[in-house]
């Protein structure tokens, strides 16, 4: 499933970079598109604002078919305090913008599966695909608005996986 998870993340990252190049994060000394995988970074005392954080949760597999179908539940968490120029009064608008961006980068609901063990990544034979997102209600914590969306990501296991 790791290739599928990597492919899913890279697809979302590339789509976000194309959709909104200004949404970035300075991470480990590099400016990157504003989306990261939580379990591939150092632990955060508090999740960064205005960035999509990809979190992997449940895992399942259907082995009674020609190619094993694996599924992993993905939670994408994001929050914002708005911008300083408006004293944070635009945090609702900023969250709405992130809602729209997330919905946009999740479409189309599939991407080619790549193997990232080598550089450049090698194309595999199948597509990673996922269901429509289910958004949670926004949660307000002082000046910060947070929301998450859950997506079930699917992939067929290929030879060597």
């Amino acid at each position, binding site marked *: 499933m790791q290739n599928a998870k990597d492919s899913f993340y890279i697809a979302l990252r590339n789509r976000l970079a194309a959709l909104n190049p200004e949404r970035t994060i300075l991470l480990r000394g590099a400016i990157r598109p504003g989306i990261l995988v939580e379990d591939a970074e150092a632990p955060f005392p508090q999740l960064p604002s205005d960035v999509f954080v990809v979190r992997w949760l449940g895992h399942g597999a259907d082995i009674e078919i*020609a190619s094993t179908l694996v599924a992993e539940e993905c939670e994408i968490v994001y929050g914002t305090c708005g911008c300083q120029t408006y004293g944070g009064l635009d945090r609702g608008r900023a969250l709405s913008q992130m809602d729209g961006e997330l919905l946009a980068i999740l479409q189309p*609901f599939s991407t080619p599966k790549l193997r990232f063990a080598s550089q450049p990544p090698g194309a595999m034979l199948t597509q990673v695909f996922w269901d429509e997102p289910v958004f949670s209600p926004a949660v307000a914590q002082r000046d910060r608005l947070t929301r998450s969306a859950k997506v079930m990501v699917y992939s067929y296991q290929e030879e060597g996986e």
Partner: protein
Amino acid sequence: MTAMCFSTPAPVARRVRAYFSPVNRAAQQPVLFDPGPQGWFDLDNPPAPWLNLGFIQNFVRKASSKSSAIAAGIPAAPLEQVRESIGAQVSLQFLAWTKLSMALATASQHMNMIAPGAPSAAVRSDSTASTIVLSAGDAAGFSAGQIVAIDHDYSGQTGYVGSPINGAYLRQPLTDVDYLRRITFNTGLVAQVTGSTLRLAQALAGGAPESGVKVQAIAGFVDREGGSFYPEWSGLFVMEGVQGERIIFHYPRLQPMASAEESALPLAAKGQGRLERVILNAQFLALPVTDPLDNERIVCYRSFLPAPNALV
């Protein structure tokens, strides 16, 4: 070693897309789809004359063909099978209300409501499917946001009427000069009026207007319970698998067989709201054609285009 192929389980598809094309009733000529050269068509831009109806839901195919065995011997045992009858039905729900989806979801004549007091204006021959050219004086009578219908004045003809999409069958002549514009499928929303030109927001379903047609503003659409006319369409339904494969169902002749009927689909989960989406139910009876390949009578084709690198 790099794998060159993979074995695919049953295709996983999200939704079904629907495409329809009118059957030429007078010539009894359906539109045949050849999946060999056409199967990988751009799903957002189907090849002419197919009209894109977008995503549908609750697509159900039901075969009603019957076979029976010819028994022989004592005791009798099946010797051969024969096909007693062929038939099929298709049901689905349209997710949008448009002229086409309403008409397809009605086993009756579908009509346009002429706007009160709306005059008709002659369309010039240099018009296209999305640009309607009038005289400058006539164009001033139209405005952006209007819906218009474009067809000939009715002049007493009988039989199948409406071109190129037959919208009705007349047994006897009428006196209503606007009748063809009441039943035409050449309708569109005016996006802009510039000088003598009406620019339509979408192309006319029947393509560029024929010479001598007129344009007239309409207020909306209406269908009736009853009547004797059954429209007929060629249908194409495409399921796109997540690995890139395609399943294509082609029904050369489909006639709507159920009266106008709607379903309510709650927008939120149960108990969480009272808003409901009103969706159009459609049910079709498949009629037979003779396959030009071998002269067999059939009602539908199912084609499968495997995913790249998938074992077959």
